């Protein structure tokens, strides 16, 4: 397992947002977390990415205990993430946004520029390289989130609802990109509501509800699982 999470628990005051969750992501695999809002998916993400400290439990990357490592350390270990609420660095240009990652990896300015351009190209933003990130449209911002994550040359990519509120055509572009990335050997963990995407993309699905893992399996397993359908897919799967 590239990523192994064990017994993850998070309290917010007296509310238990995540209750002893276990899951893993193997190298080259795409795993999707699904579940209703407030199920604890983003909390799990934040803990894995180092943005939050767990109340209990461990996170292992390549078998090394990385629990409580800060986000910059996780990034250095090859983990990249996108944010659910997009956070472009609005005062900087698109290129500069994509430059931060390579520079933080210690690349020289010229090499970093190359990497940044490559990431922008993958996201289809190369034409926008010089415009201020604050002026991008919503889909462009999503792509920038993705490009920025890719610019860090990650081994594990964490995607938090990149497909949300995109039109199907735009979402399909991202799906295609993710499939390319998987083909190149990148491991991906994603949170997604759009079941169509999840079903077509994920190798494995983890279903969460009220901070607990209620089911795990291949898309086919999950589709067949009554509990899941009752709890979650019952409404959305019909879409």
């Amino acid at each position, binding site marked *: 397992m590239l990523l192994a999470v064990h017994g993850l628990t998070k309290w917010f005051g007296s509310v238990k947002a995540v209750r002893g969750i276990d899951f893993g992501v193997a190298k080259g695999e795409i795993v999707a977390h699904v579940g209703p809002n407030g199920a604890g998916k983003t909390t799990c993400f934040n803990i894995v990415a180092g943005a939050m400290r767990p109340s209990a439990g461990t996170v292992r990357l390549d078998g090394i205990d990385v629990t409580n490592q800060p986000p910059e350390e996780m990034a250095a270990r090859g983990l990249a993430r996108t944010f659910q609420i997009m956070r472009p660095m609005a*005062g900087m240009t698109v290129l500069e946004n994509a430059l931060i990652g390579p520079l933080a990896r210690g690349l020289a300015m010229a090499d970093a520029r190359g990497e940044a351009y490559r990431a922008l190209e993958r996201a289809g933003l190369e034409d926008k390289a010089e415009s201020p990130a604050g002026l991008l449209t919503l889909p462009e911002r999503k792509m920038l989130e993705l490009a920025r994550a890719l610019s860090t040359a990650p081994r594990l990519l964490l995607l938090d609802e990149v497909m949300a509120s995109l039109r199907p055509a735009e979402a399909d572009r991202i799906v295609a990109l993710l499939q390319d990335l998987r083909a190149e050997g990148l491991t991906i963990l994603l949170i997604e509501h759009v079941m169509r995407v999840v079903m077509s993309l994920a190798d494995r699905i983890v279903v969460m509800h009220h901070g607990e893992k209620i089911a795990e399996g291949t898309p086919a397993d999950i589709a067949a699982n009554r509990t899941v359908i009752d709890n979650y897919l019952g409404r959305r799967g019909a879409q």
Partner: protein
Amino acid sequence: MVRRERKRTGRPRGVVAATAFFCALFLVPHLLDDAWVAVLTLVLFFAFVGQAWNLMMGHVGLLSLGHALFLGIGGYTTAVLLQDYGMTPWIGIPAGALVAAMVGAGIAWLGFRFSVRGVYFALLTIAFAEFFRILFSNWPLIGGTGGYFLRVVPEDNVPLLSLRGGADHFYYLFFVLFLVGLIVSARLVRGRIGMFWSAIREDEDAARALGVRSFRLKVLVVAVSAAMTACGGGAFALMNGSLFPNTLMGMQMSIQIILAPIIGGLGTLFGPFVGAVFVVLVLEFSRDLGQTAGVYGLSTLIYGLTVLGVILYMPEGIWPRLVRLAQPLRRDR
């Protein structure tokens, strides 16, 4: 903003303008009399320390309202090393910068360690500045509120060794400081570190997720800013020949330091200078006017109204506005 400037000066026109500007500044003492030289020395002083402060606020988004603390540390270190230990300011000023950098880093470390942010960070800087001001005011070794005085410059003074001298000498001292400050800031801001700083200013969490080690970079900018400010304080102490905690390290001084860069344009390299010219000249003008009219308080009123006008009608500062006026056809916003 940083970026826009880079492109601007990158053009031949910008280079020519900048060269002409620095030549003019260099020639000032030959063109104007000592009184103007003294006024412009103050402009350069406020431009320089404004630049230092701007590194923190304009480039990383850390609001310090207690920068007078570093001025005081630099000034007192330089003065005490000179007077009590006979050390030349060539050692004293760097020593002051070092001490200030350590104090700054210490405050920053504490503040960031306990994740003090926004208004709270600003208040933390005020609290430390005031704390040290009162401490210095009650510290007998440096004269307390009684002040610390430098002996008069000896007859056989060599300005280049003692760094003390007449009006022209101090003008050039601050000119060099200003220039060095500008170059150091430009190199930092436009390099790798500057890129990280901008990222932190824009969105610290996102920057960290990209692998930016924000904690040490923030501590670094506070230390650099403190060290630069302390250099200004050291030279300022040499110029005045006397130091008082209440005037050198008081809230008023902290406010004066930050007016120039905010009015000139935050996060720009030339903003602090433009702002300093504006602030010092408005002060000079309003003081003369108050004196002429014989109405005390008029100068403060005019000064306040001018600052109010600028912040109301040019909230982004004078320099960005000038740049836009000079290039009406550019449309990157």
